[in-house]
C-alpha cells in the first residue's frame, strides 16, 4: 500500500469507526427519513379520527358534490337549527360547523368551532368553501350545466415562446417543480457535508499538528502527499455517508407503501434534464473538494485542536449563506441575489442547480459558473498546498490573520 493510501485509509478507518461519526450518520439518516416519510409516520403514530364537520346549508344550492368526505374530514349535512348544532360542537360531538347562507347574491359562510381548527384543516376547508362560492355565483347566472362547467373548469393553457435562440428550450411547470425539488435535496446534502466534513478535516489536521504527530509523518511523507491523503480520506468518508443515506432512502422509497413514493420520485427524476444532472454532479464533486481544501488549510494554520472551530467559521458562514440564498430562491429563483451567489464558487453548488432547474437561463451561465469553480479549485489547491507546507510546522497564537502573518514571516 502506498503512503498516500495508508494515510487516507487510516483517516477513513479511524473516523468511520468512531462513535461520534456512527451516531451522527444514524441521526442524519433518521432525520432525512423522518422528513421524507413524515406523512406515513404521522399516519402510523397519530391515527387521528377524521374531523367531523357539519355543513348547514341555508341556500337552495346542493353542495354535497363539493364537500365530499375523505380520510381527513367527514362531512355531514344535518337539518337541525344553529343552536342545536352549536351545542353539539360544545359537547365535542362535532369539530366544526359551516353555516352557508346567501347574502347579496353571493355565498356567505360562517365557520363555528369550539377548539380552533389546525392551520392545514382550516386552509383545506376554506379552499373548498371558495370553490363552492364560485359554483354558487355561476349558478346565479342561470347557465346550462355545460356552460357552468366550462367556466369553473376552465384553465388557460400557457405556451412559452422565446425569441432568443439560446433560450428556446423553455421548461414546463413540471420540469421547474422537479428542478426546485432536486435543488432542495442537493442543497441540503451539500449544506450538511460542508458543516460536518469541513469540521472533520479541520479538526483532524489540527489534532495531528497539535499532537506533533504531523512532524513524524512529514519526516516520512511529503506535505503534498499528506494534504491530498487527508482530502481523499475525508472525501471517501463523505461519500460513504451520502451513499448510505441514498441507499436507505431508496430502499425505503421502494418498500414503504408498495413503492408509491418511488413512483413520485421517479417522476421527478424523469423531469430533470440531462444538463441539470451533469452540472449538479460536477458542482457537487468540485465543491466538496473546494471546502475540504480550505478545511485542511485552516487545520494546518491552528496550533491546537481547540482553535479549529473558531478558524473554520468563515467557511462555514459561506455554506450557511449559500443555503439561505437557496431557500430564498425557492419562491423567486430569478432575483439578483440568487444570480450573484450562483457564480460564487463556494455557493454555486447550492444556488446554480436551482437556477438551472427552475428558470430558463442561458446555457452559457452554468458553464461559466463551472469554469469559475474549476479555476477556483485549481488555484486554491496550489495556493493551499504551498501554504500547507509552510504552516504545518509553524505554531502561533492569535486570530487567523495573525496566524497567516506568522507563517509568512517565519517561512519567507
Amino acid at each position, binding site marked *: *500500500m502506498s*503512503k498516500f493510501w*495508508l*494515510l487516507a485509509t*487510516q483517516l477513513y478507518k*479511524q473516523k468511520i469507526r468512531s462513535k461520534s461519526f456512527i451516531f451522527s450518520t444514524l441521526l442524519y439518516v433518521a432525520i432525512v427519513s423522518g422528513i421524507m416519510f413524515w406523512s406515513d409516520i404521522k399516519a402510523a403514530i397519530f391515527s387521528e379520527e377524521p374531523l367531523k364537520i357539519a355543513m348547514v346549508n341555508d341556500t337552495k344550492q346542493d353542495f354535497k358534490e363539493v364537500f365530499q368526505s375523505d380520510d381527513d374530514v367527514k362531512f355531514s349535512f344535518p337539518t337541525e337549527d344553529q343552536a342545536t348544532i352549536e351545542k353539539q360542537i360544545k359537547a365535542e360531538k362535532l369539530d366544526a360547523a359551516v353555516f352557508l347562507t346567501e347574502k347579496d347574491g353571493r355565498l356567505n359562510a360562517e365557520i363555528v368551532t369550539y377548539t380552533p381548527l389546525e392551520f392545514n384543516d382550516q386552509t383545506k376547508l376554506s379552499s373548498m368553501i371558495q370553490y363552492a362560492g364560485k359554483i354558487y355565483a355561476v349558478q346565479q347566472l342561470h347557465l346550462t350545466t355545460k356552460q357552468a362547467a366550462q367556466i369553473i373548469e376552465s384553465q388557460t393553457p400557457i405556451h412559452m415562446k422565446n425569441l432568443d435562440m439560446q433560450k428556446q428550450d423553455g421548461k414546463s411547470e413540471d420540469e421547474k417543480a422537479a428542478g426546485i425539488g432536486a435543488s432542495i435535496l442537493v442543497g441540503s446534502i451539500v449544506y450538511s457535508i460542508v458543516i460536518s466534513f469541513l469540521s472533520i478535516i479541520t479538526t483532524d489536521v489540527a*489534532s*495531528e499538528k497539535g*499532537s*506533533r*504527530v*504531523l*512532524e*513524524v*509523518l*512529514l*519526516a*516520512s*511523507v511529503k506535505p503534498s502527499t499528506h494534504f491530498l491523503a487527508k482530502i481523499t480520506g475525508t472525501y471517501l468518508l463523505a461519500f460513504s455517508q451520502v451513499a448510505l443515506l441514498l441507499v436507505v432512502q431508496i430502499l425505503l422509497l421502494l418498500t414503504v407503501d408498495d413503492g408509491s413514493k418511488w413512483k413520485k420520485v421517479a417522476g421527478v427524476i424523469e423531469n430533470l434534464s440531462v444538463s441539470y444532472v451533469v452540472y449538479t454532479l460536477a458542482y457537487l464533486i468540485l465543491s466538496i473538494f473546494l471546502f475540504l481544501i480550505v478545511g485542511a488549510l485552516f487545520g494546518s494554520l491552528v496550533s491546537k485542536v481547540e482553535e479549529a472551530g473558531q478558524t473554520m467559521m468563515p467557511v462555514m458562514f459561506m455554506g450557511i449563506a449559500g443555503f439561505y440564498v437557496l431557500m430564498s430562491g425557492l419562491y423567486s429563483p430569478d432575483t439578483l441575489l440568487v444570480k450573484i451567489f450562483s457564480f460564487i464558487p463556494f455557493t454555486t453548488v447550492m444556488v446554480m442547480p436551482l437556477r438551472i432547474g427552475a428558470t430558463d437561463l442561458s446555457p452559457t451561465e452554468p458553464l461559466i459558473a463551472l469554469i469559475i469553480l474549476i479555476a477556483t479549485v485549481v488555484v486554491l489547491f496550489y495556493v493551499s498546498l504551498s501554504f500547507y507546507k509552510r504552516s504545518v*510546522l509553524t505554531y502561533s497564537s492569535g486570530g487567523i490573520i495573525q496566524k497567516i502573518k506568522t507563517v509568512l*514571516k*517565519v*517561512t*519567507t
Partner: protein
Amino acid sequence: MTLVIDQVTKRYQDFTAVDQLSFTIKKGEIFGLIGQNGAGKTTTFRMILDLQETTEGDITWNEQPMNKVNRDILGYLPEERGIFPTMAVEEQLYFFGILRGWTKKDLKKEVDYWIKRFDLEDKRKAKAETLSKGNQQKVQLIASFIHQPEFLILDEPFSGLDPVNRQLLMNAILFLKEKGTTILFSSHQMDNVEELCDHLCVLKKGASLFTGSLLDLKEQYGKIKLSIRSELEESQLNALPGVKRVKKTKDGYTLLLENELYGEQLFQILGKGKYMEKFSMDYLSLDEIFKDLVGGEHV
C-alpha cells in the same frame, strides 16, 4: 554512509536561527547536538529531514541532497510527543512501520521484540492517550526506529523519563548503534550525552561553538579541575598560584585552574612533600564545559 552539513544557514525575516553550521556524522556514530533552548537544534533537525529549506548551505547523505534521499531510511523522534492519541500502542507501531515501507508480517517480530524489551506487554491494546508520559515516550521512541532506519534523529529523547527508563533507553540507543544505525540526538542532560556520544556540536544562538570529539573538547580545556581535601581556608586556596576559583564541596574543595600546568606546583605547595588524602586533577565534565561555553558558570 555519512551525513554532511556544510555551511548551513537558516535565516528568517528578522533573525538567524542557524548560522554557518558545519559538521559530519560517520556511519554508526552517535552524534550529540547540544545547546540551550532556542539554540537552533530543532531547526537543524528539520532542515536535515527536509521539513524546512536551508537559506544557504547544503545537507547531504552519502553525497545525495536530503530531498533526494529515500525517507524510509530516516527515523525521527520529535521533541514533543508525536503519536496518535486515540490509536492503540501495537496498532501505532504497525502504522509507522508500514508507513516506512515494511509489511505487517515482517513487522510482527520487531513489534513483539520492542514491546517486550520496553516492558509494554500489558499496554499493547491501550490507547496512547491513556499511557503515562514515560510510556508514551517509549512508544514514540519504538515508532521512530521500528523500521530499522539507517539514520535516526532523536530530539530530547530522555525528557520525561525516570532513571530506570532512561537507562532502558540508553541501552536501546547503544543496541541500535551496534547494529550500525547512525544516530543524531539532542539533550539537555549532559551526563547522557557524555555517556553516549562519540562526537558533538555545541550550539549557541544558531552558531557552532565547538564541533568535534568529546575527548578533543575536554582536552581543549585540559585537566583544570582539581579536587583536594585540605585544612587550608577558602581564602588561602584562592591566593594560590593559577587558581581561578574555589568551591567548597561536602568532601573538601574543588579548584578551577587557569591551566593544568599549575598542577605540579600546587601539589608541591599543598603536600609539602607529605602524604595527601586527596589530590585529583580531572577534565571538566561536559555539563561544566557546556555552561562555560554558553556563558554560565562552572566549578
